């Protein structure tokens, strides 16, 4: 109990760190995921191939490995001195984007083919069809898996703690190293994660209810 009160500033910093990492990398992941999903269903073969390669490579690589590449290869080859937060956001965002892409693609597959054909018959381009007809209908199906992906992302962000980022896990490590009672630390850290993941699932439940339509 005392651990929380004694180290409130540390806990707050860790909590905010996890929240901001999660927020930044979910934004990146959703943006990239939508783009790559568009690639994967597009009529242009090279784009489709790129999308497939992206998903295969990122989805099947352990996240820790991506972090290692982001921290030890990217700064050396491309931009030396990039902040750890940006590097962690990139690693988390790229990794999660492959999962978002697949969720979006599964959503797109639930939209009947007739919808796309009808759109094309009234002269819409591929981008228009996707943006105005397909994606709005796909959104409903995409929401539940997307909330799972974002909750997983929240927990995955703990790896960033081992790479020069302040977040909940690194705070637990800090207090642990000082020899504070391990049980209480874990309890408070777990509760903090629960707050974030509950917020995400609550938000998505709200969205689902909003977008509900009888089929």
């Amino acid at each position, binding site marked *: 109990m005392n651990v929380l009160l004694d180290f409130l500033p540390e806990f707050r910093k860790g909590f905010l760190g996890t929240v901001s990492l999660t927020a930044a990398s979910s934004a990146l992941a959703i943006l990239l995921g939508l783009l790559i999903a568009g690639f994967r269903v597009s009529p242009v073969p090279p784009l489709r191939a790129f999308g497939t390669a992206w998903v295969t490579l990122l989805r099947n690589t352990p996240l820790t490995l991506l972090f290692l*590449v982001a921290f030890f290869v990217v700064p*050396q080859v491309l931009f030396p001195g990039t902040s750890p937060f940006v590097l962690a956001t990139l690693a988390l965002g790229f990794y999660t984007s492959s999962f978002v892409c697949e969720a979006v693609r599964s959503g797109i597959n639930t939209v009947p083919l007739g919808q796309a054909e009808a759109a094309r018959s009234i002269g819409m381009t591929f981008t228009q069809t996707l943006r105005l007809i397909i994606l709005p209908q796909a959104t409903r199906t995409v929401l539940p898996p997307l909330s799972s992906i974002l909750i997983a992302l929240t927990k995955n962000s703990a790896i960033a703690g081992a790479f020069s980022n302040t977040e909940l896990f690194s705070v637990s490590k800090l207090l642990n190293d000082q020899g504070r009672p391990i049980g209480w630390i874990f309890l408070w850290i777990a509760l903090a994660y629960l707050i974030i993941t509950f917020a995400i699932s609550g938000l998505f439940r709200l969205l689902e209810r909003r977008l509900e339509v009888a089929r």
Partner: protein
Amino acid sequence: MRIRKTAAAGAVVLALAATATACGGESGTAGDKASGGDVYSGTYPVNDKANVNSPAWKEAKKAGKITIGAKADQPYLGFQDTTGKRTGFDIEIAKMIAADLGFSEKQIEFKTVDSNVRETAISKGQVDYYVGTYTINDERKKQIDFAGPYYTAGADLLVRRDDKSITGPDTVKGKKVCSIVGSTPLQEIKKPKYGATTTELAKYSLCVKQLLDGQVDAVTTDDAILKGYAAERPKKLRVVGKPFTKEPYGVGLQKGDKALRDAITDALEKHIKNGDYKKAYEGTLGKSGTSFVAPQTPLPRT
């Protein structure tokens, strides 16, 4: 046909992934292979007449083996190589104690215990005692007991051999210093009076890699750990040698086991006096080029 195509594509992706991982691995860049020579590993006469009135010792004697907690990732200090052999200064200390408690080298079972679960492993009896850069402090003493200290370490800086600009903690202003997440020296060097920018990574080996690659200018932690890395690559790295904290290393054991604690303290005292300690130090951490400083004897019984 189709299957063959998929298989080919799969192979390409695998190859790509393999090249990608090769860059991120811990193997390091070419030409920076460890070159510290052999690590000293001694044998110590077993005290067959040992009799310690401690529950942990009695149980170990009955089982015919003693379980010792140690680190496995600290070269020249507490290290386990790919063949499973353990070497290093802490390992030697652990072996000296075991010999005096009446256990031969064959009867020792080493167990790798990570820093953050040390108190748990000791108090739950998963290990009989623990030797692994374990700083004695009051917070830990609430949960376990310490014998010793057997070595007084202090936070120091590891730099590239040819880097003359860092001569102590007062010269790190504006420099990049790396340490592991949450470690005490990191909290110290973060203080505004030193003015260093910090990088926090999961393992010291990653910090050392960044140091060799020139991405950070120094690695900070207890000098014992740094000496280990310097001993591994004496041509590339050196320890500055201006410790700025005091970290007395103790042997961790279950709380309240006074008999075992006294026996361990006696063992340490004996081996410091008969020169085993000095030999072990010079064959391990001493290879970093730092000179041997005799530990305080008799050991304060904390």
